[in-house]
């Protein structure tokens, strides 16, 4: 049977992992922004289907990362609420 201190410490350890995950998400979004700019500059005026697909999937990746970050915020809030009740 785990003690309250252990439960609290395990949640803290999990939140540390989430924080590191959030940092990676933010860094990934910055890189995505740079990639979007670079593609837009290089492929300006192209009507090729593959170019359209590249733009669309980059934009989708960014949106997914944004939603991912939002979900982690909710998770952190719930976990903190839980530890406050311990």
């Amino acid at each position, binding site marked *: 049977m785990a003690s309250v201190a252990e439960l609290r410490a395990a949640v*803290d350890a999990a939140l540390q992992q*989430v924080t*590191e995950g959030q940092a990676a998400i933010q860094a990934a979004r910055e890189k995505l922004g740079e990639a979007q700019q670079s593609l837009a500059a290089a492929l300006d005026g192209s009507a090729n289907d593959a170019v359209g697909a590249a733009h669309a999937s980059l934009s989708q990746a960014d949106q997914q990362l944004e939603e991912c970050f939002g979900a982690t915020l909710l998770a952190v809030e719930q976990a903190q609420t839980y530890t406050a009740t311990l």
Partner: protein
Amino acid sequence: MSLLQELGAQLRATSDELPTGLVTVAMERLRTATELLNWVRQTSVDPIGVPQLGNATEHAEHAAAALRLTQDAIAAYLAALGLAADAGTPPDQDWKAGLEKKDKQDEPAPAPGQEEQQPPPEQLGPWWRERVEKLTGEAPPPPQANGAPPERTADTAELLRRVAAGVRSGDRARLGRDLHGVNAATGLGLSAVTPPVLRRLAGDLLGHEPGPDDLQRLRGAAGGRVKSLLPGTPPATLDTLLARICRTPPAEQAPAHPADSAVTASVLTGVLLARLGRDPATLDPGAPEPLRPRGVDA
């Protein structure tokens, strides 16, 4: 260089620099957090953020898939321009992304007045060491005679290399010492850094990307050695790790102790490295990319 070649080079660079490694790091951190919270959740009816973390992980997986589609689209465009053959495919570096040292400047600054304070004592230390003892069968080393705290590795990537070295030498006592010699946060971090490394090593061993059909072969190649070094590891833990490598759904089971997955994954990494005849130093992100064999008889 012609204008067309210049455009091709620029597009290849953009494709290579897409943050696939960072997204993988994020996914694995979130999975490790979920594993820890699932363990806590066994004592509570509170969801403790687990469903939200599940959503977050799913979004990260979709983002990773979208990045792969972007790379495919750029490759298709390059092919349409007749430039594809010029490209030397760069080695896949994503598997090392989680092993990179964290940049000090990315760490939050300590609060004013706390710069010189010692970190608080670790609450999970006994919890971690108790589980390491159960898994390895090796008791924690006795405290030093002078009462000084033991020197601890605080870097998960360094711990992984040490574990791999212990596996290579087949020295279970050394393995136990290295695992006991870290705090829980460093040890649990093994869960987050090992998945892409395991998949890459398994792929190198098999000679192709691991799939569901490779499960038995990998189990045969690594299972016995893992079991001999970790006599206390539940069989389901290794099966789950191998299933993840092979991208096949693991069998349903109760949430495992978070340390089980972390420790077993690190030993499995060492076993696969040894099967490939590679030195643990090849896990250093700065080490040259190992040559990918055509397939080793596993």
